[in-house]
């Protein structure tokens, strides 16, 4: 099963409500994925600064202590805050490799959940409504966001095995489905310099898109290439710093419904997730066609 919700705001006046709307959408998808949940939020960013969202192997890990040590030993100028089991550390863009290397060396159990100027990802094991509450997602604002409720199939139920996955700066992906060629593709991508941290099939899809975009493709082109290179069934929703994309496999066995108004583009696994959105009564509602990339960019 699994459930996906995504919201891309066109009307900036709605940005303060992004977290609230995304939380409501996700709440209707709890039974599709009761194992874990995650939220990717594109909020405010600063030029030449990178936000690193980090988390321990599971909730209860002392992330505050990790942040203190990190600031003391490698990033004295960093600013940070803790949100439940995750911490967001803002550092100079040029210091990111140094911080990453330090973490790998000194706190290998800490995972960098996401890195980007605007992206923050919060994900945890638990019932999606509870996860949203722990992180207080409803209070967050931003331009676009993606959430996922997971019913695990291909790998274990852990914090790091939860969606969304981020394998590139300001990039994230959620997946409903399963991939059959993830093992071989993971090896190829690692050889090509893409960092893939888990045994999860969806992270491979995220890594694949990161490589395609690194090598010059646009988000739309990368999604299209995925149709040839990813074997299995999938509905993907992906986010970049300025964009939001959707693609389904050629059979389109996993559900997807979209809505668009002058104010937003919304994606959900089921129509019921869309019913709380403002102006949904008059929105254009459709099911995305198989093997067809859809994407939107912010001005």
């Amino acid at each position, binding site marked *: 099963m699994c459930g996906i919700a995504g919201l891309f705001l066109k009307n900036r006046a709605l940005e303060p409500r992004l977290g609230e709307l995304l939380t409501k959408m996700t709440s209707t998808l709890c039974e599709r994925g009761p194992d874990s949940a995650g939220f990717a939020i594109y909020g405010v960013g600063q030029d030449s600064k990178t936000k690193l969202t980090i988390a321990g192997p599971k909730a209860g890990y002392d992330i505050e202590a990790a942040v203190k040590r990190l600031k003391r030993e490698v990033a004295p100028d960093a600013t940070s805050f803790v949100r439940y089991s995750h911490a967001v550390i803002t550092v100079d863009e040029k210091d990111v490799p140094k911080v990453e290397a330090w973490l790998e060396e000194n706190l290998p159990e800490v995972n960098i959940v996401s890195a980007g100027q605007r992206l923050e990802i919060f994900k945890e094991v638990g019932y999606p409504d509870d996860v949203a509450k722990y992180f207080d997602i409803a209070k967050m604002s931003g331009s676009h966001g993606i959430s996922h409720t997971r019913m695990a199939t291909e790998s274990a139920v852990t914090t790091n095995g939860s969606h969304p996955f981020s394998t590139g700066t300001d990039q994230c992906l959620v997946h409903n489905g399963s991939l059959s060629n993830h093992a071989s593709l993971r090896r190829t991508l690692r050889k090509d310099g893409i960092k893939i941290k888990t045994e999860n099939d969806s992270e491979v899809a995220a890594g694949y898109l990161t490589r395609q975009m690194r090598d010059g493709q646009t988000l739309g082109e990368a999604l299209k290439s995925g149709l040839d290179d990813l074997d299995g069934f999938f509905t993907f929703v992906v986010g970049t710093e300025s964009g939001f994309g959707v693609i389904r496999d050629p*059979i*389109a066995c996993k*559900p997807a419904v979209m809505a668009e108004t002058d104010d937003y583009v919304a994606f959900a696994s*089921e*129509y019921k997730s869309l*019913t709380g959105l403002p102006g949904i009564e008059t929105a254009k509602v459709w*099911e995305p066609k*198989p093997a067809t990339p859809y994407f939107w960019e912010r001005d």
Partner: protein
Amino acid sequence: MPNFDLAKTPVRELNAALHRLSPSTNETLWTVSNPCGEHSIAVGVDADITINIHGNAGYFCGGMNKNATIVVEGSAGQGVGENMMSGLIHVKGDASQSAGATGRGGRLIVDGNASARCGISMKGIDIIVKGDIGHLSAFMGQNGRLVVFGEAGEALGDSLYEARLYVRGPVASLGADCIQKEMRDEHKSELIELLKSTGDAFKVDVSEFKRYGSARKLYNFNIDNAGAY
């Protein structure tokens, strides 16, 4: 006139109440409020009653329906009217994929669009969609009629048996063994009869429809194809 508010009562209680009805019940008008995309609303009903659902239904709404008239004042999720035997299901909005799947009888009307696999493995149901239908519709359709006012997606009627397909708009592609067939007078009369049941007989020009059916080449094993297996 029983009314079930699904914001307060679980869908199982609604369905259990519907299943308790005897064929001669005089509780013939039911309303369901706040469906909010709940799955399996009014599944397995076997009584000559009318059920009005005020809002959007989730998966399998009206599945296996016998005799009842079910009206969805909104959209329906996957598999609306799947395996229905008789009666009528009328979706005022859009229907998601696999609408009317394996339906054996009765009539399913969708005022909006139906998505992928509409009428997959249909076995006698009549499906009338006033908008478009998605890919792989009427896949392995064995019997019944599928009428589409708008367009059809890829691979219409793949591996079709004897279901008859009438599509007014363009068809993206035909599936294996599905061909366009001549629209003779008998087919026009058949279509007019079907459209009378939805009140569209005089609003829609039946000569604008094209008929699709099975080329019947996949019915029997062909030794020339042995190499393909």
